């Protein structure tokens, strides 16, 4: 009799104690020449444990880094953001003018309609691969 709630509790603990990462809505704007690109993604942690995005990589660029655009007194500054914390049961939506993944040294410029895989490495959940859609230049 006591075993059933105990097992249920254990099961619930197991479920809540793990990070469950889902990455979606990954997109970038097209680029020209050797200019870098910016990727915007939505990260959802449906689990009960905090997780962290520790690195990003893609075969399509020499370097992929999480960057943050900071605005102060009308001046935009772009800085490396380091690791991104994704708390349990929360989500992070990257939008233009804020946090983004910068792709430096693109193998070929990003073209509207193309897509390419991006690998995101999380401390707890390991690697997640997402397909990045290259949108129109005027997508916001």
């Amino acid at each position, binding site marked *: 009799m006591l075993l059933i709630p105990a097992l249920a509790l254990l099961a619930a603990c197991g479920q809540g104690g793990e990070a469950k990462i889902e990455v979606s809505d990954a997109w970038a704007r097209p680029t020209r020449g050797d200019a870098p690109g910016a990727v915007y993604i939505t990260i959802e942690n449906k689990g009960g444990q905090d997780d962290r995005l520790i690195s990003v990589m893609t075969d399509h660029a020499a370097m992929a880094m999480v960057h943050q655009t900071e*605005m102060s007194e009308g001046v935009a500054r772009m800085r490396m953001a380091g690791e991104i914390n994704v708390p349990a049961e929360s989500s992070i939506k990257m939008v233009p003018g804020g946090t983004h993944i910068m792709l*430096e040294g693109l193998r070929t410029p990003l073209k509207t309609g193309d897509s390419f895989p991006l690998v995101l490495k999380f401390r707890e959940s390991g690697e997640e691969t997402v397909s990045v859609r290259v949108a129109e230049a005027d997508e916001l």
Partner: protein
Amino acid sequence: MNLKRLRIALWLLVGLVAAGLVVFLWKQAETEQPAFSQTSLGTIGGPFTLTASSGKPFTSAQLNGKPAAVFFGFTHCPDVCPTTLARLTKLRRELGKGDDALSIVFISVDPERDTPAEVDTYMKLYDTPVIGLTGTPAQIDQVKKQYGIFSRKVSQPGGGYSVDHTATVILLDRNGQFSSTISMEEGNEVALDKLRRITA
């Protein structure tokens, strides 16, 4: 007696100074008529010569006759610059007065990397007309000063550099006079109202 003479002399002096002042102000009013007019709000703007993406010289007088939204940025800017240009092209479309009603102008704050050809390919990302301008470092410095724009090169880890810069859009009326600004944080409704005002 002496006192009366002194009084007359003093009045004459006052009259002379007043006449001099009138002449001086008159002359100043005459000389203070720059080609590209100044604003009552200060001295934002002024005549400039830069280089168009075609490689040909481009003077500020070529903007006259049409209101303009002027944005300073650089082509190696992946987030803020394309976001602002995308926003401006969208706002112009929402305005519903056609591409001819408002010039969208991009001025590079990175003249070292942004050659006219580089600016040209960048502008061609948009399927709507955007005027892309660059120039010599001295020309860019001058136009930045005229429009109160800050920019600074910042080296990036792993080589290369980024440019911190003022991302505020400057709105000019059809006479090239400063009207108002659009900031990144501002809502689109407020921005549209400002655009309606200069395109009215």
